[in-house]
């Protein structure tokens, strides 16, 4: 249904464009004056008045049609006295029967009636959908065609419309972000209504398995997120221990020592690292690195678990190398050549120049790169899900299982999708904490990078 309506809209805008173009030419010839704008702008004007109302109709149908039909069907449903219905299941059944008549066998007469009611409503909706699209497009074109006079500044109006369109597009991203933030906040508030915020932030017991259905028996859950934050921090520290030196030294090599040819090959190669799906890193960590870490731990007498903070952190470190190396390389490169020449001109050698002039000058930018990498590391999910384990241990030993904020969000959301208990709602509280932390890191990092830019540009 919606495919054909798109074809209909396409035909509509095409003909409106042609119509607008020929109409303005005709009108200006009749009046014997030249139109203020080129004919194409009048054509676009008609087109827009045709297209946007049609799109509004299209989307409102796409969004509301099913809901409205379902409400009508349910409100007209002939309930049998005394029977208990689950509305969701009932609707699914009605839809099944309506879409596939062979399911009707053995269903009660109420359901079959409702299904045919549903089908007929859909048909009505479809017909009225097509009719209203055609009518609205015609109305739009009619309104626009009244304006098609040579003295009308079509171009100005078009430019204004285009500006509105651009504003709309950019606000989509902003409003989505705001929406997500608010949903995080409100769901977190529901969580904190059941679990005290002090327990969440300061208690060290994370045991979110509480009875979620009546009749189930389980221990009372506890929601102290400290072990989770500690685990996240531990994995992040391991990752930065790997990524900071490797990334920074790579950047120094690329920016100061590598020839143009090497640089042209190596930099894109490094950036490919950033393009590898993180789940691939995850099973690399689990299959190759974690057993190695375990064996290594045993060889030095430490009892390492099969999944560990060390394995996950190391692989995550490799993952964020390109963030650090690429950003630091840019920063080092933007240190003015004149400083290099000044230092070398005094007779400093390359190492002295890098250590004493270039790195200090680039330091703020490098710190910014590190902070961005950290915020990337603590937001990373797949590697830790696979390779760090899910046990909320409060430990500083990287050979042990730990769990991170992102892993616990995954765990909380698997299996049960009803957001009516603290266990699933805890995902939002954890998400909120994660969001706040990464937000602050990003703001600080961007501020630092910006201040650095101002100094040299």
């Amino acid at each position, binding site marked *: 249904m919606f495919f054909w309506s798109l074809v209909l809209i396409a035909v509509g805008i095409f003909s409106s464009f042609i119509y607008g173009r020929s109409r303005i030419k005709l009108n200006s010839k009749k009046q014997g004056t030249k139109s203020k704008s080129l004919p194409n702008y009048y054509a676009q004007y008609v087109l827009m008045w045709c297209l946007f109302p049609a799109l509004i109709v299209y989307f409102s149908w796409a969004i509301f049609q099913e809901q409205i039909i379902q409400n009508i069907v349910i409100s007209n449903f002939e309930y049998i006295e005394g029977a208990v219905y689950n509305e969701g299941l009932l609707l699914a059944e009605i839809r099944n029967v309506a879409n596939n008549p062979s399911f009707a066998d053995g269903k009660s007469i109420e359901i079959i009636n409702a299904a045919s009611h549903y089908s007929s409503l859909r048909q009505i909706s479809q017909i009225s959908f097509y009719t209203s699209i055609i009518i609205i497009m015609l109305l739009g074109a009619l309104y626009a065609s009244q304006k098609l006079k040579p003295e009308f500044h079509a171009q100005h109006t078009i430019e204004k419309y285009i500006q509105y369109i651009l504003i709309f597009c950019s606000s989509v991203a902003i409003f989505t972000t705001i929406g997500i933030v608010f949903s995080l906040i409100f769901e977190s508030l529901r969580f904190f209504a059941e679990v005290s915020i002090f327990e969440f932030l300061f208690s060290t017991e994370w045991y979110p398995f509480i009875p979620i259905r009546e009749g189930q028996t389980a221990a009372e859950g506890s929601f102290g997120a400290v072990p989770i934050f500690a685990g996240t921090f531990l994995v992040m520290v391991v990752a930065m221990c790997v990524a900071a030196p490797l990334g920074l030294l790579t950047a120094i090599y690329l920016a100061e020592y590598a020839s143009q040819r090497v640089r042209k090959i190596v930099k894109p190669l490094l950036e490919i690292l950033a393009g590898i799906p993180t789940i691939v890193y995850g099973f690399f960590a689990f299959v190759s690195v974690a057993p190695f870490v375990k064996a290594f731990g045993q060889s030095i007498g430490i009892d390492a678990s099969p999944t560990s903070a060390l394995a996950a952190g190391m692989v995550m470190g490799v993952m964020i190398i390109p963030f650090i190396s690429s950003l630091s390389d840019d920063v080092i490169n933007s240190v003015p050549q004149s400083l290099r020449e000044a230092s070398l*001109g*005094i*007779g400093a050698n390359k190492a*002295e120049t890098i250590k*004493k*002039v270039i790195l200090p000058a680039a330091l703020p930018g490098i710190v910014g790169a590190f902070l961005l990498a950290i915020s990337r590391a603590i937001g990373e999910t797949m590697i830790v899900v696979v390779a760090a384990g899910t046990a909320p241990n409060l430990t500083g030993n990287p050979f042990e299982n730990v769990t991170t904020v992102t892993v616990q969000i995954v765990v909380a959301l698997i299996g049960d999708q009803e957001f009516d208990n603290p266990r699933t709602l805890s995902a939002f509280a954890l998400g909120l904490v994660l969001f706040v932390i990464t937000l602050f890191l990003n703001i600080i990092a961007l501020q630092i990078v910006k201040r650095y830019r101002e100094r040299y540009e």
Partner: protein
Amino acid sequence: MSNSKILANGVDVYYGSKQALFGISMDIKEKEVTALIGPSGCGKSTFLRCINRMNDLIEICKVSGSIKVDNEEIISEKTDVVSLRSKIGMVFQKPNPFPKSIFDNVAYGPTIHGLVDSKNDLEEIVHSSLKKAGLFDEVKDRLNEPGTSLSGGQQQRLCIARAIAVNPEIILMDEPCSALDPIATAIIEELIDELRLNYTIIIVTHSMQQAARVSQKTCFFHLGELIETGETNKIFTNPDNTKTQDYITGRFG
């Protein structure tokens, strides 16, 4: 020949496949100011940067021929570039102080070359270099402020102080006043005149008046060739070559 400080012979420079200098030969005397003049792109800066091997920084740049500093060949694989550059200071077109304090800017060279043993010695060198550069009185109360906070002319004098702090014998100046206003320019020119007593100075300049004011010898470059070289007085009053005549009278360039 005896007091010849720099002796260039048949220097060719290529940027990739493009030849920028054609067989430059030149004899630069000790404790004189030599001005290199000529229209933009004539190769005078390129030649200047051959003398302290600054062209090494440009990957595609190839230098051939011979340049001898104190009778030692410097266009050679074996040349110790670091010690060469500590002997030849350079001042650049745009003042380029390090983003460090005024003191640290000047102290940078002596520290990396290990010229000083104690803090007092270092302070001594920094102060005397700043005095020689004529900057000390203006900055003595704020040696810990960043070098970039100074005015353009002060920054350029700071760069000169930084260059002479390692006690070089030669100072190369690549259009040192092109980013400065006339007053700062006059101060720098006066300074060059004083420095001449102790240093051999080669200055690239676009301003013919400046060349006439500060230099004893002048070399005129055109399209990568050294057209004429001689006493500054003679070049500006009675040049041998008509191209030189045309340039200094402003007919081209």
